[in-house]
């Protein structure tokens, strides 16, 4: 218990490291290992060939067999090291393998074929990132177009979400009016029902609005997220009413109070929601899949997921795509997270 409890309060940097600081760093190190390890694994894996991905047990770095171009052989030949038999210790090139025997040549003497047991050789490999995973991505489709589609949808949707949700949250947090309880209950109630459950009716509704197959069909239906309203509202409750009162005395209209006082003061929560929304929209797959059917409107996620077939998924491409799509959101996160950290240390009151 004690070591858990020790982290539980903030300390102030005081040069000397308290043991709780050590504990914190230990926890963080573990976090890096657990949280970030797999992500690194993922990034490294995106540079592996499909064969390397299929390999059991997996290896951390991408390897590719070393080959050599020899006279008299059209194709480059794979290199092996011989572990046993007369050629033990030598590096040879394999010409072909039949059953349990393998026909090899020494690179110095390409003409002379030797037969060795296949169990007596190990392939020579070296680290080689499979950049072709990325190359094919760009070759296979119009990356920029999908990137633009995704960006447009993500940014527009996030802007709308932030605006609409913060307005609602403001009303629910800072005004007393009849029906407020009901609205809050409704918001939370609906918050519960996952989109995957109402896909069909949602599709029907969207169709009625003629928004299918247009970016708006993706943007609008998800704009009023109950999560956002709830999150922002709870945060806005912590803003002292007195500051709003001061603004009222300053003859600020309610709208102005909203966007000049409450919005900036909710910056941490807004940043959380922005990150969240950007991430949702950028990674969203299920709904765009339904709402968009023309490939020119596709988002990056859709386009890239087209590597998923019935029986088989091209993991190498899928991973490369994951890494690619991860980058922009990671950047956005890096940018926005500082707003979360800069809370209002004091409320400007007494």
């Amino acid at each position, binding site marked *: 218990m004690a070591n858990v409890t020790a982290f539980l309060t903030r300390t102030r940097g005081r040069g000397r490291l308290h043991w709780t600081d050590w504990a914190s760093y230990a926890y963080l190190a573990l976090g890096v290992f657990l949280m970030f390890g797999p992500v690194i694994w993922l990034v490294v894996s995106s540079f592996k060939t499909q064969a390397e991905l299929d390999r059991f047990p997996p290896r951390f770095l991408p390897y590719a067999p070393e080959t050599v171009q020899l006279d008299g052989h059209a194709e480059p030949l794979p290199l092996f090291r011989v572990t046993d038999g007369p050629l033990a210790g030598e590096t040879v090139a394999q010409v072909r393998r039949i059953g349990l025997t393998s026909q090899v040549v020494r690179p110095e003497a390409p003409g002379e074929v030797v037969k060795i047991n296949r169990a007596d050789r190990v392939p020579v490999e070296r680290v080689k990132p499979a950049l072709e995973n990325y190359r094919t991505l760009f070759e296979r489709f119009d990356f920029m177009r999908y990137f633009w589609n995704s960006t447009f949808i993500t940014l527009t949707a996030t802007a709308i979400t932030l605006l609409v949700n913060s307005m609602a949250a403001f009303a629910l947090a800072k005004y007393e009016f009849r029906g407020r309880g009901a609205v809050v209950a409704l918001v939370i109630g609906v918050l519960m029902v996952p989109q995957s459950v109402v896909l*069909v009716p949602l599709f029907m509704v969207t169709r009625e609005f003629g928004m299918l197959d247009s970016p708006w069909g993706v943007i609008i239906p998800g704009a009023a997220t109950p999560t956002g309203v709830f999150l922002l509202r709870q945060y806005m409750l912590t803003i002292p009413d007195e500051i709003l009162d001061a603004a009222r005395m300053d003859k600020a209209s309610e709208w102005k109070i909203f966007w000049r006082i409450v919005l900036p003061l909710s910056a941490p929560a807004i940043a959380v929601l922005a990150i969240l929304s950007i991430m949702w929209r950028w990674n969203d797959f299920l709904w765009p899949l339904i709402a968009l059917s023309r*490939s020119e409107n596709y988002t990056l996620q859709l386009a890239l997921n087209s590597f998923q077939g019935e029986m*088989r998924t091209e993991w190498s491409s899928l991973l490369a795509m994951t890494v690619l799509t991860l980058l922009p959101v990671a950047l956005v996160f890096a940018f926005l997270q500082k707003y979360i950290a800069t809370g209002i240390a004091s409320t400007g009151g007494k």
Partner: protein
Amino acid sequence: QEIRFMCYSDGNECEAAGEIIERFEAENDGVSVVIDKVPYKAILENLPVQLAAGTGPDMAKVTDLGGLSKYYLDLAPHVDRAYWEESFGPILDWYRKGPDDDGIYGLHSQLTITGPFINRTLFDQAEVEVPGPDATWDDWAEATRKVAEATETPFAMAIDRSGHRIAGPAISYGAKLFGEDGTPTLVDEGFTTFAQKFVDWNKDGTMAPDVWGAAGGTTYQDAAQEFINGELVFYYSGSWNVQRMDSSIGDAFDWEVVGSPCGPAACTGMPGGAGIVGFEQTQHPEIVAKLIDFLAEKENYADLTAKSLNIPAHAAVAAEGVTYEGASEQAAAALNAFAAQVPTVSPIAFAYQGYKNNRAMFNISLARVSQAIVGELTVEEAMARAKDDLAQALAESGE
């Protein structure tokens, strides 16, 4: 005019078709075909909704051949019926709404057939004879166990986790699947027998338990990775995996495709695959029909199968044999070995593949057999539940 073609691919099928379609566009002025390449999920889950809502594409490559039949565009008025009947014969039935329907709806662009891959090298190392073409599932189980023991390979056998995959073996064990009058029954003595055997094999470790045991619901799960890594002696999958085996195994070991093992009733696999269909909703039925017909022309069809490394469903193409582009000898041999099995497919398997609610039956058998394997239900309970499920599904689909 713009034609929308919704296509998914397991390899390069869409690109292969695309090349042929370009030729079509060149021949037909003013027609532009846009291929919307989608994830398979879209075909399976969204296309039906879109079709129901009337917002679907003009044509698509589909796998739920019977399930979507009510939306298909009948090509018969626009194409040479004789040519189609002759080339595709019974496969045309798979697209039809029922026994009395004689429309022509789709081009079976990708015929698949289930069957086993074996790790020949392991057999050689263990010095165990590879069972012959008449060998039963029990023979194979026996032989592969021996190989696995001798070579310390973790698993003897595996079957993909799929209702479709176990249909072949079940039919071999006498499953009829349909009653006399053609109504689906799914569970019968033959089916139960195989289910029992399969469950036992999973429990005694003959079958790799990870495949069926470690997943749930109707998830598809293959064992290709285990096979590729030489951890599996006998892998019951299908022709679509040839390409992957070829590229991923490389020369790590020798592998082969053999005929489906036998049961008391048959030695059959399941046919399957995907086809290109047009939809009634299209604004341009003639062009859609013309395009599909174009793809069905013999040389185009041959081109398509050769490029996408598939088994031809086109009789004449099959008869001539396909020279697969860029495939190794081993792969070509494997594909031909699969193609050779097409004639031995049981009529029940054929009918099953063509039945419009077969996906429901696949899923039901999959889910319930899985539960029996992990011990949530006994085999009898599982079978009883499967019957109930089928009844509910049929009731809902109006039968």
